[in-house]
């Protein structure tokens, strides 16, 4: 049933994925639990730490996680990531995603470099006291079916395709009996009254609030009246009036999709070009030719008051057009692949319908984030205009890493250390700010708070792999969060 949320394609992708978790800590196993339960294909835990006694932490975690879903294949490697990086860095190339939990900075950066070059997405997670941190580093993550929550409908009322025009014409609102009139889909109602409006307004769409209000009034006047001149109860007309705002939006390609279609890097298709970009190129060719500047028709319409026949007929007009457009895009895909000597059995039809939902997420590398030349100074300083912004927590986490580098331990592990460590941590904060040329003020309260934590974590949020870009900070003290691009 849950596959309803991410669809059959999503479930398939999940089942083909092999995730690597480094460090089976509370946070790490929590993350893996949420991947194992819905059915990820396989996982491998890399952990060199021992559980008290004889058991290895990686092994113990693997066995317990396996219990949750017998379809998932679990593996473990009793080795520290540093050792693997020393002896066999290509070990990591096989994974669809690597999740690094509670890694020390040096290991994290080493690993990040290897994964970036291998094109393997890397998710860094840290929990520190009541602060959660996630950083996604992936050169390019493409999303074909992004399932946005409240996407606008693709009704084409401003530029009806031929079949839609014909269908609209088959209706004669002024000469219908009452039952038919009240059960005509609102899309038809809006289309008909739009024709009236065009005649009186020089073929211009209602543009501003005043005009839209006048258009709504025009529709309102079309509601049938009984013998006493009182308006009848026509819900379909009410729906039409309510939807005027969005139904008349000019059909255009969303900027996110424009960017994808115009992406420089994939202008030339080769035999190595990933499927997503072949599709993008095919969609672009459609837009420039058969589509006349528009994307393939999506083909779905929302439910609305109408009798079954009228609704189904209207729905079929959109559906058939969508299938036609998808076929054309498919042909473009085939000829592109042929031109580079590939033949493909390709499920392109379904993906074409969601052309408006193509997304690409590109996250900066950790190396760039930490480089003095390329650090995102603007983002950091502007967020710190509010000294209590979640950005201060990011700076504290970086400072704590620095502390560890210098003292081989985290601040405030023992009660007697807390006082002294506050001063030492402050030095780390200042050296960090200085090195990156950040002219911001980090309140002493935060330095104190991070010494208080003593590197322990109260288990907190875990997330499914979601392409946020690229840093997510969760503050459990205030139950707030923020996303930054660093």
């Amino acid at each position: 049933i849950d596959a309803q949320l991410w669809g059959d394609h999503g479930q398939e992708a999940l089942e083909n994925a092999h995730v690597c978790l480094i460090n089976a800590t509370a946070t790490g196993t929590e993350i893996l639990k949420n991947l194992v339960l819905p059915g990820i294909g396989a996982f491998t835990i890399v952990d060199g730490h021992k559980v008290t006694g004889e058991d290895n932490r990686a092994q113990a975690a693997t066995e317990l996680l396996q219990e949750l879903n017998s379809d998932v294949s679990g593996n473990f490697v009793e080795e520290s990531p540093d050792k693997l990086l020393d002896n066999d860095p290509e070990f990591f190339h096989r994974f669809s995603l690597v999740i690094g939990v509670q890694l020390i900075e040096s290991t994290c950066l080493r690993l990040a470099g290897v994964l970036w070059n291998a094109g393997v997405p890397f998710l860094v997670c840290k929990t520190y006291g009541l602060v959660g941190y996630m950083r996604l580093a992936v050169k390019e993550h493409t999303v074909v079916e992004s399932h946005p929550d409240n996407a606008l409908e693709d009704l084409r009322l401003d530029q009806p395709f031929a079949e839609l025009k014909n269908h609209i014409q088959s209706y004669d609102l002024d000469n219908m009996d009452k039952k038919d009139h009240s059960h005509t889909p609102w899309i038809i109602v809006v289309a008909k009254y739009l024709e009236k409006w065009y005649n009186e307004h020089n073929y211009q769409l209602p543009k501003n609030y005043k005009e839209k209000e006048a258009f709504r009034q025009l529709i309102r006047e079309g509601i049938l009246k009984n013998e006493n001149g009182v308006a009848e109860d026509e819900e379909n007309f009410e729906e039409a009036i309510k939807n005027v705002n969005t139904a008349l939006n000019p059909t255009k390609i969303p900027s996110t999709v424009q960017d994808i279609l115009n992406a420089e890097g994939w202008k030339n298709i080769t035999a190595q070009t990933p499927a997503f970009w072949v599709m993008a190129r095919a969609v672009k060719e459609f837009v420039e030719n058969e589509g006349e500047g528009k994307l393939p028709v999506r083909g779905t319409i929302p439910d609305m008051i109408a009798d079954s026949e009228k609704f189904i007929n209207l729905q079929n007009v959109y559906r058939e057009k969508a299938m036609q457009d998808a076929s054309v895009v498919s042909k473009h895909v085939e000829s592109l692949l042929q031109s580079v000597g590939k033949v493909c059995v390709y499920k392109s039809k379904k993906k074409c319908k969601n052309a408006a939902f193509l997304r690409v997420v590109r996250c900066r590398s950790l190396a760039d984030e930490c480089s003095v030349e390329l650090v995102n100074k603007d983002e950091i300083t502007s967020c710190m205009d509010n000294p209590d912004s979640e950005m201060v927590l990011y700076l504290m986490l970086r400072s704590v890493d620095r502390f560890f580098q210098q003292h081989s331990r985290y601040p405030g592990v023992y009660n007697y250390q807390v006082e002294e460590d506050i001063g030492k941590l402050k030095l780390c904060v200042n050296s960090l700010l200085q090195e990156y040329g950040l002219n911001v003020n980090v309140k002493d309260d935060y330095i104190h708070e991070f010494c208080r934590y003593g590197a322990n974590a109260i288990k907190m949020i875990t997330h499914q792999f979601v392409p946020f870009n690229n840093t997510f900070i969760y503050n459990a003290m205030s139950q707030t969060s923020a996303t930054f691009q660093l």
Partner: protein
Amino acid sequence: SKITSEPIKLMAVDSGHGGNARDWDGRWNHVQKFLERPGPFTHPDFEPSTESLHFLLETCKILVIGAGGLGCELLKNLALTGFRQIHVIDMDTIDVSNLNRQFLFRSKDVGRPKADVAADFINRRIPGCNVVPYFKKIQDFDESFYRQFHIIVCGLDSIIARRWMNGMLMSLLIYEDGVLDPSSIIPLIDGGTEGFKGNARVILPGMTACIDCTLELYPPQINFPMCTIASMPRLPEHCIEYVRVLQWPKEKPFGDVPLDGDNPEHIKWVFQKSQERASEFNITGVTYRLTQGVVKRIIPAVASTNAVIAAACATEVFKIASSAYVPLNNYLVFNDVDGLYTYTFEAERKENCTACSQVPQDLKFAPSATLQDILEYLTENASLQMKSPAITATIDGKNRTLYLQTVASIEERTRPNLCKTLKELGLTDGQELAVADVTTPQTMLFKLHFTS
């Protein structure tokens, strides 16, 4: 086996918790740092102390309502944080469809009560923890039961149940000369999820916004209008509803039994009939999976959303129990459909909230209005949204039931009252009407005002 919590070896030199043989060295190290160290962001009333850990471990009594998706996560989080006196109520048994996120259950547990299995698992896995299960409905308990808890956390899937719990905690409040006695307040932490969305809120009964104060925040339940179902279906769901609501009771294919969403024979029958109905209207899209989803009213669930919301709730329980930090004030919204989004705000109390405002509720009707009019008002008014209210009044010194739906014989007997006018029923201006409903454990009092 005992597990060290961090990659860096931590020694438990600082204040071992002593006394309890179940606790190995350093077991509560991480929690102690929050309880025993002063800090800049703690609650103003917080005082670092070594006593707090003892309270958390041995004394603090938490009630978890629901042992499903949220409940399993809550129990795990609370037990690992150190709470040991945990009680859990759940009226359901385990279904195979629960296993992909309710991780305290295995396939061998199917059919057993969720509360029992969850308690078993936690108690065995986390030494020292004492989860007490109840395979019951929340309505099976009264004030004396609920009064024993320090904090109550809900992981429910029903608004009605939430409102009932909300009402129960309101009924525990003690007012002296109009002033609320703070010791009678039991904080209620409420979590809810649906797919990739969720929310967590902190309710301090009598002080902050309650469930009923924010009833409009809950999305309306999707119920298709009957005329669509009966004569004008457009979607595959309409066809399935037709079979479920109209065809099944009429044809009784398996005898006089209610439709059971877990019985594959039943679902198969509904599926076939729905397909027939759909083909009559040229509707496509009826699948077995959709049929089951509609019949069982299944809302798709995601393991990670439950994890997030339960974590937020457990964090709040910890904050309140320890006073270590200021609790959430008071509503958190979470959505991870696109990236990760959270939004935190302070929901406001409604001045005349039916559950928590203590303001007597008024009913303004003409003497010529009928009892039916009052009934419709009680069910349709946005702030009341009652389900099947039972109305009683004291007339001529005697307590009379004017209308009651939930018992068939009484319903039949009182049905004629619905068409009678308030005057005909003998009601007077300023009279009190007592209304009972599933949405509240206590009878609600209304004052009737006649309008001209």
